[in-house]
Structures are given as C-alpha cells and as structure tokens.
C-alpha cells in the first residue's frame, strides 16, 4: 500500500476539499493507497515515518509551517506542492501589499466593531511578515497549481504516481480551453468588471475587459470564462511566463490587450486600475515572479 500524507499549511482547506471531490474515485484510490496522516480528516497527531507521497497545500507563514514542511520532506519519498498557495503563495500573498503592523492593527486595534486591543501574544505563535511558497524552503518533486486544482487533474496525477509512473499533464494556457472567440478590435478603453454587459461567446479581451487567460496555466477547462467571468489567474502563470525571464503576467497581459485592441501599450498601462488585486493577485508571494527583471511586484510589496 502506498502511504499518502495530506498537510495544510497556511491554507483555506479548499485544496483538501478538491481531493475529497474525487468522490467515489477516492474510494478506488484507497484500494491502492492509504492516508496515514491528514489532520483535517483524522486524529493522527504526529507525522509518521515512511510516507510515499506527501501532498502539501497552503503557503508558509511561520517557523512552525517551515518545520512541518521540512519534516514532511524528510519523511516522504515524493513531496508535492499542491495548489497555487503552495506553488506561488496564492491569494494570501496579497497580505504582502501591507506591513504586518497594518494587517494586524486593522483587525485588533483599528476596527469598527472591535474594542481596541493589543495584538494577542500569549500561547499563540508570533507572526512572520511575509508569505512564502513551499519551494522557498525545500526541494519539491512536483508542482500542481490551481485554486484549487481540478479534481480530474488530481485524479490524472495521483493514479500514475501511486503506480510509480510519470503523470502526463496539460501544458497549455487557459485560452486554449476557452471557447470564446477572439477578434481584433479598435478599442481605447479598459472596462472594470462591473461596467457594461459582456457578450457571451466573445473573448473578454476583445471586449475591453482584463482577462488573464493568455498568461495563466490552463488545467481548469476555462470554467470561469464559460461562466461569464474573466480569468483571474488562479491557476498560476502559464509555462511561457514561467520559463522566459523577460515574460511576466503584467507585461504579458498588456502586450496581449495592445495587440487585440490596437491601443499603444502605454495607454493600456495607464488604464489598468488595480494591479495588485487583479493582475498579480495569486503570485505576489512568489519569489520566482518577484525576481523577474520586468516584474512590478517589488514596487507593490511593503514588506
């Protein structure tokens, strides 16, 4: 029996739910593998030895997260960073847009419903100031981004891994899965998502909306664009963006909008209204994305 461990670091548990979303396939999987450690599901309180596959979700926010990650690394043959938080810091990386003091004072001392108080400091662990993806601390054998990863993808990866085979994963961007038709237009305005009424079936970029489908890894099936909502980039950067030092989510999406709308890139840049939340929303904590020469992340973070 292959031994699997599930651990959530700084996570929302959505990744664990996505594994449970294998539904009856989970039962089949448990014929070949056993879950030996998963605090959200079972009462084993200590990481056992001899784990074959450890699946770690969430980002790293304190020493305890880091120690747990390193312990899992030591005790596991294969360590997988599962979900966009573990791979790139995820949406909680947005906390880096503010200092730790700003974050905690908004909750405890400068808050409309709260009797102003000091930051809690007994028994609870001290906070660190920055969000880290798992790979900042240890060697990772496999990255499965997605917020959360789609259950079919998880199935297609876990089953071969359990059988000691190499999984075959899609490598295209969200655009490749999106059914909307792209067309070149003459347009000089970028619209906020609350403005207008997007036409179904037509590419969001071709309608003046910021959509990150072209710079996002597409293993989701383009579900959001199908549901009438532009891509927010939750799957993490596309392989083109990751591989090329001069490629970035921000410059990638600007080039794409300029190309489709015939608007000069400078005009596109002027109109982008919320870079931190809309463009870099899921990767602000990512060292890889921050270190790119063209990245604007260093200008956005306060930490």
């Amino acid at each position, binding site marked *: 029996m292959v031994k699997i461990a599930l651990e959530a*670091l*700084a996570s*929302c548990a*959505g990744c664990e*739910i*996505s594994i*449970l*979303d294998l*539904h*009856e396939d989970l*039962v089949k999987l*448990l014929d070949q593998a056993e879950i030996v450690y998963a605090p*959200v*599901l*079972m*009462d*084993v*309180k200590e990481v056992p030895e001899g784990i074959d596959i450890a699946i770690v979700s*969430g980002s790293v*926010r*304190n020493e*305890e997260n*880091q*120690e*747990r*990650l390193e312990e899992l690394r030591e005790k596991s043959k294969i360590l997988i960073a599962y979900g966009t938080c573990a791979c790139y810091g995820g*949406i*909680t990386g*947005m906390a880096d847009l*503010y200092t730790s003091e700003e*974050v905690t004072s*908004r*909750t405890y001392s400068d*808050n409309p*419903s*709260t*009797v102003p*108080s000091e930051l*809690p400091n007994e*028994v*609870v*662990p001290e*906070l660190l100031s920055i969000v880290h993806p798992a790979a900042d601390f240890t060697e990772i054998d496999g990255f499965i981004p997605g*917020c*959360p990863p789609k259950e079919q993808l998880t199935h297609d990866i876990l089953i071969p891994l359990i059988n000691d085979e190499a999984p075959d994963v899609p490598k295209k961007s969200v655009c490749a899965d999106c059914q909307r038709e792209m067309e070149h237009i003459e347009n000089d305005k970028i619209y*906020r*998502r*609350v*403005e*207008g009424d997007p036409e179904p079936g037509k590419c969001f970029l071709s309608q003046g909306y910021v959509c990150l489908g072209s710079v996002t890894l597409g293993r989701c099936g383009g*579900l*959001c664009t199908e*549901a*009438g*909502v532009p891509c927010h980039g*939750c799957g993490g950067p596309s392989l083109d963006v990751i591989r090329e030092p001069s490629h970035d989510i921000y410059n990638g999406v600007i080039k794409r909008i300029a190309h489709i709308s015939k608007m000069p890139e400078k005009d596109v840049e002027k109109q982008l*209204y919320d870079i*931190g*939340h*809309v463009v870099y929303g899921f990767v602000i904590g990512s060292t890889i994305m921050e270190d790119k020469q063209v990245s604007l992340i260093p200008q956005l973070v306060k930490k």
Partner: protein
Amino acid sequence: MKQIEISPVTRIEGHAKITVQVDDAGNVSDAHFHVMEIRGFEKFLEGAAVEEAPRITPRICGICQTAHHLAAAKATDQVFGLEPPETAKKLRELMLLGQYIHSHSLHFYFLGAPDLVMGPDSDPAMRNVIGILKSNPDLAMMAINTRKIGQEITGVVGGKPISPVTAIPGGQSKGLTSDDVNKLLPRAKEAINLIEKGVEVAKPLFEQYSEAVEALGTIETHFGALTNGDGIEFYDGPAKIIDKSGGAVYEFAANDYLDYIEEKVQPWSYLKFPYLKQLGFPDGNYRVGPLARLNVAGTIPTEKASELFAEYKDAYGIAQNPLLYHYARLIELMYAAERAVQLLEDDSITGTDIRQGLSGSLMTKEEAKQSSETKRGVGMIEATRGILIHDYETDGAGFINRANLIVSTGQNNLSMDIGVRETAKAMIQGEDVSEGFKNRLEMIVRAYDPCLSCATHAIDGSSPLQVDIYDSEGQLLRKHLL
C-alpha cells in the same frame, strides 16, 4: 500547576489547540480554546476594486466559499445601488443550498460523526471517515454521494464547485438552461433519499449518546439567525436575536450590525470574541449556526424537514447542548435538498433576466481622489456555520477603503471556550488524562464545526499532540509526545 495541551485539534477546519491548567491538588483551574491563526483579508482587500471582492473572499475558506462569495456580492450590489432580479436571487439561493448540502454532509459524516458512529473512546486510527469506509461502506458511500450532489449544484450554478464565480454586482453572470435543470433536478431528489437514509442512521446515535449530549460543553446563551418572519432563512433577511428561553430580543438589518455586535480581543487567541453590544461581555454571549437557526425559526417550509423539525422541537425545545448542533445540521441538510428541488421545479429559475447592469458611468480614480464621496455596502447571509457579515466602505469610484468581516465561527468562540473549560473542570482530575477524555473536549469544539480559515486567516501550522508539564512556577518540567 500543570498544563495539558491538545494540539492540533483534529477533524476541524484550521489550526487550534486546547490547553488545560491543573493545580497541585489535581483540579482544573482553567482551560481555553486557542485559535492559532490570523487573517489578513480585511486589510488586503483595501485598494481593491470592490467588484473583485466576490472573487477574492471565497479564498478565505475552501469549505464555505459560496457564503463568502454571496455575502461579498450582496455588499457590492449595495455599493453600486443595484437590485438583482428575482431569478438572480433564486440562483444565488440555489448556489447556497449546494453549499449547505456539501458542507453539512462533509461536517456530519466526514468530521463529526466518526465520534458517534465509532464512539468517543474508539481507536483514534479508525475514528475517521476512512474507518467508517472500512466498517460501514454503505454509510460512507452515502456520505460521499450526498456531498457530491451539493458540489454538482454549486458547480453548475456557480461555475465552479470550489470558489464559485457567477455572483456579480447586480445579479448573476450566467443563468441556468433547461438542460442544467434536467441534470440537477433528479440529483437533488436523490439527495433527499440519501439524507433520509442518513437520518435513520444518525437519529438513534443521539439517544445512544444522550449522556454525552447532556454533559459535553453545555451552556445557555442567546442565539442569532436571519429570519423571514417565522421561517428558516439562509440567503436574505434581518437578523433576529433571541434569549435563552426563545424570547425575541432584537431584530436588525445588515447595515445596522455595528449597533448590536461588538468584538473583544483576548490575548491568548487570534480569534476575536463577538458579543451583543448592549448586554456587554460576557453577558451578551450568543451563538449562531444550525442550532441557533432552528431555535430562532418557528417553521421549516418543506415536508420532510418540517417533520424532523417538529420531532426535534418536541424533544429539545430551545436546544442548548452543543452536540445537538449535529442533529440540527441534519435537519437543515434535509431542508436544503428539499428547497433545492423546489427552486429547480420553479419555472422562473431558467429566466434570462438575471442582472441589473450599471446605469451611468463610474467615477475615475482621479475623480474619486478629488471627491469626498464614499459608498458602503453590507452583505449579511447565513453561512453554513452561522451569520456572516461583509462590510465594505469604498471611495466614490468603488475602490475599498475599509473592510470589516464578522464571520460565523467567531460568534461561537466564547461558547466553545466556556464549554471546553467547564467540561474539563467536571471531567478531569489530575494530569493523567485518557485519550478518550481529550477527544471529548475536541468533540465540543467539533460540534460547532468551527471554520478557522474563516475565523482568522491561516498563518499557523500545527504541532504534534504533546503534553507539556509545568511546575507551579511555570517552568517546563518535561514534554512528551502522545
């Protein structure tokens, strides 16, 4: 003075621990439920275009993302002055029902029930859903199938089963087709049958463990829930507060919550303690969630759930015992499936008028800087774990200046803390505490189905279960792992 520590509390969502102080005579002098995380969402929403909040806030919690998605959407409706059409409201309610079916079945079968199905003192290695799968595969498959139906409903209506996206300012980005309805309706009906079987298995457990129901974490409090007059309500309505005997105390609209709810910070927990402002702390302690909703509601407007509700009311009246949260959760699970069928059988659910768009143009960022205008939106909803409030204040252009979130689990924080302490005092003598006793303390916390990603936002990892023994000067004598 010695300290017993239970860390991490398992089979809950998020990171927490329980500490118990034992004095030199072997009596419990104090005990607390500590939440080890803090959320940064309130701060980092600042600067965001408010229409992005419904996409950002589902990541507060991967279990009850739909509730955050919808509370945020309701707040943005208000910021832009938009009223979703009736079909859009029904779609949002249906999406929320999918959430209830998934979350309640997850909690009952996967997290809570193992204590009752396997027993509080059973082998910890088997006391989980996988143990149930081995010992009672039919029950486990029922659990898996019920939750799957909930996720299917949310997936179709919300675009994705986890972190849905279709609620946008003024309504929905996507409607339902008749094909969608033909796919979902039989599944919702199937959920009713599955839940009926689940209830048959579960109901005897409350009698079997009536002693635990009586003894664990018992407390008397006020209760708060949304209401639509007399009926149970998940999506919209004022909040109603009742006292411990069921008498109505207050009723308030979302925008007035600051006049009724205040939060206290304790130095030993990152999770704040909300209470009723006019009654002060701790007298103003109140609870939310399934137990509170069934205490506040006079009626449930669906057939099977109302039968279960009548039986439950006869047995428990205004229920106070935390373990009855499980029972109340099952009744709500039935209501959610029946109500989903009602909505799917409603012809207007496939209506195409699903969004009120913005009339007129938005201020630019520059214009907003010059203007002193601010806007506010407050979205209040029943998340599976209780009342959830998203309060956004924006500039004239709709960029968030300040966000405040009151989450369900926070409102049960004081009751979890008191419940753990009083039960520890009653049950524990000396420092050698059996695993089963420790698990009973965890069962109190588990009954509330706390969602600590919501309650805070994850910063902390967990440590192995260890007991730290201190001497009366507070010096650490020894640590041992269990």
